[in-house]
């Protein structure tokens, strides 16, 4: 089974022009440490909100491809936001290793259902020992540079 960081790299390659939103915890940490890009928004908090942020963005910019990368624990916290899907320009991936790894490996309950727009990507347990992502102002400045050049300019 692949590591989280390898799957993140694959997703970035698979959607080369998309705007990415990574959920908080190890997903954002490893993505920002190993594959930092201006087109990526790294959540530092806001547990369970990655998908709703993606929905808000995608609906406001229907011509922009948007990708949300969630963890399985985070996804379950945000389950009510699944009612906002599908959105045609939004791709949703859940990196699923079956545990809340950021907080010590507590088991994650299974998903009660998996809609066809929801892409479960199984990953192995294990982390790269990365630091917290960059601070919020740095994340926002980088993102705004990309957004200005590609969307909001």
């Amino acid at each position, binding site marked *: 089974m692949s590591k989280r960081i390898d799957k993140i790299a694959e997703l970035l390659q698979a959607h080369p022009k998309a705007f990415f939103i990574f959920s908080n915890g190890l997903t954002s940490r490893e993505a920002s440490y190993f594959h930092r890009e201006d087109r990526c928004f790294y959540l530092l908090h806001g547990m369970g909100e990655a998908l709703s942020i993606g929905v*808000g963005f995608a609906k406001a910019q229907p011509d922009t491809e948007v990708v949300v990368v969630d963890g399985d624990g985070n996804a379950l916290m945000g389950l009510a936001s699944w009612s906002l899907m599908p959105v045609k320009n939004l791709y949703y991936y859940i990196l699923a290793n079956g545990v809340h790894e950021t907080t010590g490996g507590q088991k994650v309950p299974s998903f009660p259902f998996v809609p066809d727009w929801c892409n479960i990507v199984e990953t192995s347990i294990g982390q790269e020992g990365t630091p917290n992502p960059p601070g919020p102002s740095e994340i926002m400045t980088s993102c705004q540079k990309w957004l200005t050049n590609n969307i909001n300019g």
Partner: protein
Amino acid sequence: MRLDEKGRDLFDLKMSSAEFTKDIESQCNWFGCVPDSVFKQVLPKLKHWHLAPRENHLIGMAFGAKLAGQKPAVLIQNSGIGLCLDALLGTFCLYNQGLLLVISNRGVLQWEEIQHQDWGDITEPLLSVSKIKIISFDEEGIDGLNRAAKMAFENNEVVALTIQRGNLDE
């Protein structure tokens, strides 16, 4: 204060839902709501608004819209603060982004149902301790609405506009 058709206290009517809608649409261009009866007459008059299942997801959607270049306003009942405070702190507040948070301040009047009373007591103290600026629509009316929106988007901060029962036609 004034009385409703049942003789119960109501706060003064500050403006009609039509005027409120027209003004808020001149200040913001993205709207979201978890429905509340105080906004019953406002929602159908908005050109477009987004429905969310819970207030925390509404904040998430509004934050996504803000990243996408919109000026968002969300309309929620005060009890929704209990569901969305973490989302607010983890998105708009943490990343210094502007949001107009329109809150119906239920549970302030004595006749209101008991399930609203605690929220009537704690809404403003909770917002204050959360470092969210509050502007009272009851005290300032349309000037307060305009001031709240201006502060939110010029200073990149969350500003709460509290609306009392009776301030808008229901």
